[in-house]
């Protein structure tokens, strides 16, 4: 009884103590668990924070001067923009504004029009720094500049006639190396002749100019009635001081003012560039219809010693919709062309893209390669009926290459509807329209060469009603320039040598009219420079028709013209011809047999152990036969020799009465000295036919000791080529010393062919041998 009571009391104490400790431990464990969970959650949040990756890609201003921001979520998790900070860097003092955002962006999503509904507004002439903050605390910034690094290009004609229209184009490029946008850019064009534009500048402004983007503005002025120089000054609203370009236009009453070529290729080419060839001016010779086509040629000239990859090439014009909905023909390359209507007013584009060149299909996007020191052409013909009355416009020729973006600008200077002129070169003066080009490959160094220029009126409903002139500028390294004798239809050939030794050819057509859909060729000769390495030159060639005026024009005569920048590749003299091969050493070989001449065949003895000996004509059954094309047996045996078609070869004619287990051998009559040389035999075999199981074996006979096998046998396992397939010649090589006994000074060699012992179609066993070479090597 007493013992039991103490046990109970002790047990109670024990339970109380254990429960207390357990409670403590439990609470401690819970706390530790909470801590661990919290650390895990915290780590996860930290990882998410690190994963978050956003970028403000563009910022522009809306018509109401609100910021219009595009943010790209580059990270793998969604993000929420919670705040926008805007700092006006141009104000004094600098002002800071912030506004809350609530913009969710999914991974990979680009959200646009952010901040357009906020109360923050911008001054278009100020520069701003924008910074967005995400819910996780990450930030992204963007700078919106008004005065950053820009490139201004100004395009004006070098010369114009009095009262003529002057088309002036300003190109502004955002070439900043930092992510930035120029807000609402507006071009400014001033001149020192108080000329005012005849039309509202086009366009009036551009919303937001991002990195590497262009803004193009054009103005039209009318030149004064008197001669003089006009200085144009191009800039833009908000440009930093000094950011402007000036160019001078010469207003001159010289009638042929516009004929002077503006080609830059007056010397040996030293950089990758665009060659313009055949662009007509104007482009509308057949208004309202007609089938005439103008030739548009673009070349990429590559004087470097490394290849240039061309990814895209485009002809575009901001006016006249010249390339809109056109239907090109005669494209070279055939695939990859398209026309684009960018919905930018009259802006139209004719485009070639390597990614669109689907020949062969599927489209691989493989760029077109311009090998080092070469010229590659793109050619296309467009109808002369683009149908818009505005024909005075620049044509931008652009190309995206592995050497960078190339740009050339060709300006149409004639408006109204008019015959369309083309100019190009040809190597076939009897059919130049189908053989037009603007490159001359492989002109030998120092050699006198004839060049042929073709002038074409590609309109099919309008004649030229006066003389046509042609000018050719030849770089200074060429000499001895002369017009080709005896050609008719050209007058007044003038060849002028310039102070820098370049030459200028000017010639007029004899006839006072140039009928529609006709052409005239003009040929001249020039001696190419002596070069030690491949050298590329350009003949800048222009044709023009200067004597046209129409009553509706108050700006004086217009000039129709065309330009062709023809590339000329002069190559140095080739290496001296290799010395003739040494005569064969008959004691060492090689001894050859190609079954193409009697001498070969007479050096061998052909034996058919069960048929007729000798080398017989094709079709001689159960014997060695000679042939140069397919054997008489259908679908079996060689189709031609190993060297091509036709080409001689020998074979076993297996037609009946040839039988199973027949043997044939061809023995080289000359004995070989194997005591001082080791010998090797090479030959080609042809085994075509399902039941062609012939076994070929090389054998030697040392001093009459009997024929022994050397090396492995060939064939036997069945036709290498099935019946009716294209035959295949297989090279076999056997080292005659493989037998280990080939050491005698009088050794003979032969090829033994053995027919199979059991096949259904014995006639399949037409087995061919060709091009046997026996070579000795001194021991």
């Amino acid at each position, binding site marked *: 009884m*007493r013992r039991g*009571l*103490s046990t109970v*009391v002790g047990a109670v*104490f024990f339970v*109380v*103590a254990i429960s*207390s*400790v357990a*409670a*403590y431990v439990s*609470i*401690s464990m819970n*706390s*530790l668990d*909470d*801590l661990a969970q*919290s*650390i895990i*959650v*915290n780590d996860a*949040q930290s990882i998410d924070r690190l994963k978050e990756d956003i970028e403000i890609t563009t910022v522009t201003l809306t018509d109401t001067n609100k910021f219009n921001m595009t943010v790209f979520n580059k990270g793998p998790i969604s993000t929420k923009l*919670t*705040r926008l*900070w805007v*700092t006006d860097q141009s104000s*004094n*003092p*600098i002002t*800071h504004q*912030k506004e809350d955002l609530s913009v969710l962006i999914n991974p990979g999503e680009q959200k646009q029009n952010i901040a357009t509904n906020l109360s923050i507004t911008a001054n278009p002439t100020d520069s701003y720094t924008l*910074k967005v*903050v995400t*819910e*996780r*605390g990450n*930030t992204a910034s963007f700078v919106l500049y008004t005065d950053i690094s820009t490139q201004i290009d100004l395009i004006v004609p070098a010369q114009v006639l009095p009262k003529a229209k002057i088309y002036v184009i300003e190109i502004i490029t955002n070439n900043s190396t930092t992510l930035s946008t120029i807000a609402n850019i507006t071009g400014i064009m001033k001149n020192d002749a108080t000329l005012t534009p005849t039309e509202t500048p086009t366009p009036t402004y551009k919303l937001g100019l991002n990195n590497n983007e262009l803004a193009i503005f054009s103005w039209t002025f009318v030149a004064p009635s008197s001669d003089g120089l006009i200085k144009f000054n191009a800039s833009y609203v908000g440009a930093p001081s000094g950011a402007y370009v000036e160019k001078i236009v010469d207003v001159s009453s010289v009638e042929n003012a516009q004929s002077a070529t503006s080609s830059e290729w007056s010397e040996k080419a030293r950089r990758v560039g665009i060659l313009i060839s055949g662009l007509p001016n104007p482009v509308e010779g057949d208004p309202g219809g007609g089938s005439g086509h103008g030739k548009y040629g673009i070349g990429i000239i590559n004087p470097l010693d490394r290849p240039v990859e061309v990814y895209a090439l485009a002809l575009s014009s901001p006016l006249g919709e010249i390339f809109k909905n056109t239907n090109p023909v005669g494209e070279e390359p055939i695939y990859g062309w398209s026309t684009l209507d960018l919905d930018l007013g009259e802006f139209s584009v004719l485009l070639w893209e390597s990614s669109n060149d689907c020949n062969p299909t599927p489209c691989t996007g493989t760029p077109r390669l311009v090998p080092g020191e070469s010229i590659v052409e793109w050619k296309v013909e467009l109808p002369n009926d683009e149908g818009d009355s505005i024909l005075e416009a620049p044509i931008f020729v652009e190309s995206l290459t592995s050497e960078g973006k190339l740009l050339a600008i060709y300006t149409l200077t004639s408006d109204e509807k008019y015959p369309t002129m083309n100019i190009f070169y040809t190597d076939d003066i009897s059919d130049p329209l189908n053989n037009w080009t603007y490159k001359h490959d492989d002109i030998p160094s120092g050699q006198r060469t004839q060049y042929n220029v073709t002038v074409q009126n590609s309109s099919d409903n309008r004649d030229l009603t006066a003389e046509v002139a042609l000018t050719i500028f030849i770089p200074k390294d060429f000499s001895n320039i002369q017009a080709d004798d005896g050609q008719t239809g050209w007058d007044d050939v003038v060849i002028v040598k310039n102070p820098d030794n370049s030459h200028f050819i000017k010639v007029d057509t004899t006839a006072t009219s140039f009928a529609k859909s006709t052409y005239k060729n003009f040929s001249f000769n020039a001696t190419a420079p002596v070069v030690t390495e491949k050298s590329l030159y350009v003949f800048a060639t222009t044709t023009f028709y200067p004597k046209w005026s129409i009553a509706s024009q108050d700006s004086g005569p217009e000039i129709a013209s065309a330009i062709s920048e023809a590339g000329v590749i002069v190559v140095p003299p080739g290496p001296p011809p290799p010395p003739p091969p040494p005569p064969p050493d008959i004691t060492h070989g090689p001894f050859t047999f190609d079954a193409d001449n009697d001498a070969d065949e007479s050096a061998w003895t052909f034996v058919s152990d069960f048929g007729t000996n000798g080398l017989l004509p094709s079709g001689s059954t159960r014997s060695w036969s000679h042939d140069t094309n397919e054997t008489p047996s259908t679908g079996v045996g060689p189709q031609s020799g190993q060297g091509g078609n036709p080409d001689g070869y020998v074979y076993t004619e297996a037609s009946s009465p040839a039988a199973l287990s027949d043997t044939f051998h061809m023995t080289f009559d000359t004995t070989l000295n194997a005591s001082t040389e080791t010998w090797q035999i090479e030959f080609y075999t042809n085994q075509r036919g399902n039941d062609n199981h012939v076994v070929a074996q090389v054998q030697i006979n040392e001093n009459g000791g009997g024929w022994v096998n050397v090396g492995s046998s060939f064939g036997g396992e069945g036709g290498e080529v099935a019946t009716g397939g294209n035959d295949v010649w297989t090279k076999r090589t056997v080292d005659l010393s493989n037998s280990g006994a080939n050491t005698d000074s009088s050794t003979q060699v032969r090829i033994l062919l053995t027919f199979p012992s059991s096949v259904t179609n014995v006639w399949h066993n037409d087995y061919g041998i060709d091009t046997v070479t026996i070579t000795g090597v001194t021991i």
Partner: protein
Amino acid sequence: MKLFRITTKRGLGTVVTAMILLTAVAMMGIFVVDWSRTNLAVHQEKLESTFASNLNKLNERVIFEYIWFDANTSPPNNIVNITMNNVGTVGLNVTKVELVDPTLGTILATNSLTNGGMIPSSTLSLNVTYTWTTNTAYDVIATTNRDSLFKTQVVSP
């Protein structure tokens, strides 16, 4: 009879002794158990407090969302405006913000706050008065009442 008397005396002494011992042991047991429970409760409370404090400290996170140097002050260049954002999951109280020379580690200016409470996702803007020099790096350090430190470095314009 004689035998009965002797037996009765011996049993009473044993019972009394047993009772005394039992009572003493019970008293000591109750004391020890009570002491240990009290002790455990105190430790438990301390443990919970410590864990809670550390958990909250662990979840504190402040970013410096925007810092700009105000040049148009009198005297000039005398204010640094700092905006902080509580991107953590718990409320916190910023007690001071210091401007520190990152090279020497000396405290250049301090703004001690009495109303620096920030609920999650809220911002707090404040000025630190200091005559800053242009194109110079400064460390900005914010301290919370849980002794968390948040630091960034900025370069004056």
